[in-house]
Each structure stands twice: as C-alpha cells, then as structure tokens.
C-alpha cells in the first residue's frame, strides 16, 4: 500500500466524520429545519416557544437554535416585547 492510497483513505474517513458532525449540528435548529430565511417579530406564538415560563429568552444550549437564527430571534423577541406583544416577565412572577 503506497502513500497515496493511504492519504486517500484518510481523507475519505475525514469526510465521513465531517458529514456526521454536520448532520448532528444542524439537526436541532427548528428554524433551519423549517428553512426560515428570517425570524419575524410578528410571529408571537412561535417566539413564545423560545422563552422560559418566566418570559426569559432561552439559551442556545437548551433550545438548540443555531447562532444565525438566535441572533435574529433575540432581536425579534425584543421588538415584540417593546410593542407589548410579548411579556418581559410573566404574570406568575410579577
């Protein structure tokens, strides 16, 4: 077995590993799964799914949202809160 064959084999394995990782990473984000271009602040029902019971924004670790969509989501929630379409703090804790 020569050096080139070895290299090819190594690359192949690397590719497979990367594919696996990519699949795992992108599996979770609900916005990516839905192929959302941009998170809309008007969609309050959907936004409220990404807030805790007390009304706080969930972290990416808990919700599984990707970095791109989390950036859009945070802004959307804040716009909706300003317009009194979402609560800052839930009624329970107030």
């Amino acid at each position, binding site marked *: 077995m020569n050096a080139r064959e070895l290299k090819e084999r190594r690359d192949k394995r690397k590719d497979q590993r990367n594919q696996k990782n990519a699949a795992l990473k992108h599996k979770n984000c609900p916005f990516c799964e839905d192929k*959302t*271009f*941009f998170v*809309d602040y008007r969609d309050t029902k959907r936004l409220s799914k990404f807030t805790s019971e007390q009304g706080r924004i969930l972290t990416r670790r808990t919700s599984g949202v990707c970095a791109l969509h989390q950036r859009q989501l945070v802004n959307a929630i804040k*716009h909706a809160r*300003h*317009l*009194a379409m979402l*609560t*800052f703090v839930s009624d329970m804790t107030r």
Partner: protein
Amino acid sequence: MSKKTRKGLPGQLRSYETVVVVDPQIGDDVIKSIVEKTKEVIASNNGTVTKVEDWGKRKLAYIIDKKTYGHYTCIEFDGPGEVVKGLTDYYHISENILRHITLLIDSRLREERKREKAPAKEPGSQDEMFV
C-alpha cells in the same frame, strides 16, 4: 469610499415599516387621524407609503399607562433615512400613542413573509418517499 451607515447612503431609498399602538378608548376617528398624519409625515419627507395594515384592537401583554388594550396599525413605506427621524419626532409630540417602532425591512424578512402567505409545495417529496 462611501461609508455605509444605519441611515443608508444620503438620499438612498430604503424600505421601512412603522408600527403604532394607540389607546383604543379615544375612538376610531382619532386613531384614523393619527394614521393619516403619520402618512403625511412620511410623504413630507419624500417617502412613499406602500402598504397600510390595520391589525385592530389587541390585548397588551402588559399594562401600559393603566391600559390593557391597544389598537395596532402597521405602515410600510420606502424613503430616505430622514423619514425615521420625522416619524419619531411626530410620535413624541402626539398624545395617546402607547408604543411605536420603526424598523428596516430586511430583504430576507420580506421573502419570509411571502413564503408564509403562500406555503411552498414541495415537489418530489412524495416521490422520494416511495423510492
């Protein structure tokens, strides 16, 4: 090299949307007049109104100035960055406005809203299932 600012290039037209929350207790006529005046402000700053959406009376998520309901109106327009300042100045002067916001409409957001209105059928998705 021209510097890109949040206002955009001087004289550049960009698409915005502004949402006003008015106290519904003051009556429909006053709400109408407020909407008309905002339109005038946009027009006087060389902007053009493209769409007016009346979202109607909605319950507020939290109490603002002892009010539990608000009348929402959304106005979409194209115009230069000066319109935004004109609008905020107008909103600050006028009474009975509970909340207001003026946002740039991202081109991706517009695409998203188009998609929501006409949910895309997925051609070939059925075929894939049988393969």
